[in-house]
């Protein structure tokens, strides 16, 4: 049985490929070499665009915040609500955290806070806000007789 020739040792592969591209050392056609050159360029371009110099977002919105920051954001809303009792303001503030419903946002924050070991006082405030939101939701959903 004829054994396939080993073209390059693994560690020398990139170097050998480049030499092969630049010199006419094998039967690779000009078109194939051109395509390989483009692919190398694409790889370099992606490396530059994704790793070396990715687009930096400096004008972000609260909905892109990391979950722990979002949880603290919800906690601040709950703390403020605990004092002012202004549900409309709390809902307005929760709205900047994304498309999810205010109740969903608070519940998600409570789940994270429980896992992260927030104090009982903090959890109670968030639960209180969640309960109040639930009451309002039920009132809205209950059809009038």
């Amino acid at each position, binding site marked *: 049985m004829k054994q396939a020739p080993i073209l390059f040792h693994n560690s020398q592969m990139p170097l050998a490929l480049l030499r092969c591209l630049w010199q006419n050392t094998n039967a690779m056609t*000009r078109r194939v070499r051109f395509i390989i050159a483009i692919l190398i360029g694409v790889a370099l371009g992606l490396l*530059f665009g994704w790793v070396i110099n990715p687009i930096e977002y400096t004008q972000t919105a609260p909905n892109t915040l990391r979950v722990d920051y979002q949880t603290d954001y919800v906690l601040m809303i709950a703390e403020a609500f605990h004092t002012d009792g202004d549900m409309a303001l709390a809902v307005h503030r929760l709205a900047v955290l994304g498309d999810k419903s205010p109740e969903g946002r608070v519940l998600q924050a409570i789940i994270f806070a429980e896992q992260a070991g927030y104090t009982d006082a903090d959890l109670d405030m968030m639960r209180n806000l969640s309960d109040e939101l639930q009451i309002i939701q039920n009132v809205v959903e209950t059809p009038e007789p």
Partner: protein
Amino acid sequence: MNEDERGNWYLLTGVVLGIMLGILFAWVISPVEYVDTAPESLKDEFKDQYRVLIASAYVANGDLVRAKARLELLDEADIYLVVAEQAQQMLAEGGSVEEAQALGRLALSLGQEIPQPKITATAE
């Protein structure tokens, strides 16, 4: 023309073309998405909202250490100055009085923490 006579510059053209395509893909078609950002990267108007929220929470819990820790997330040089200025600006622009008062209270508490220069009497 013979293949060798045409040279190998087409390879460089290919690489340059590829780099352009790669950057186009990385920056325009599928840019890196930031979904886990920190408060310091927030847009200015959202930073203002964040400060108002910190102040409102501070009024509720009176925890200055927590308020300071939260303000530090916004990565600003002088948190006292920023909060005080926002309170004044909010009042000047006819914003919410309650929120301006909360910011004012926080600024006052932060201001009291700034070490004052000691005045010592000198004997004549």
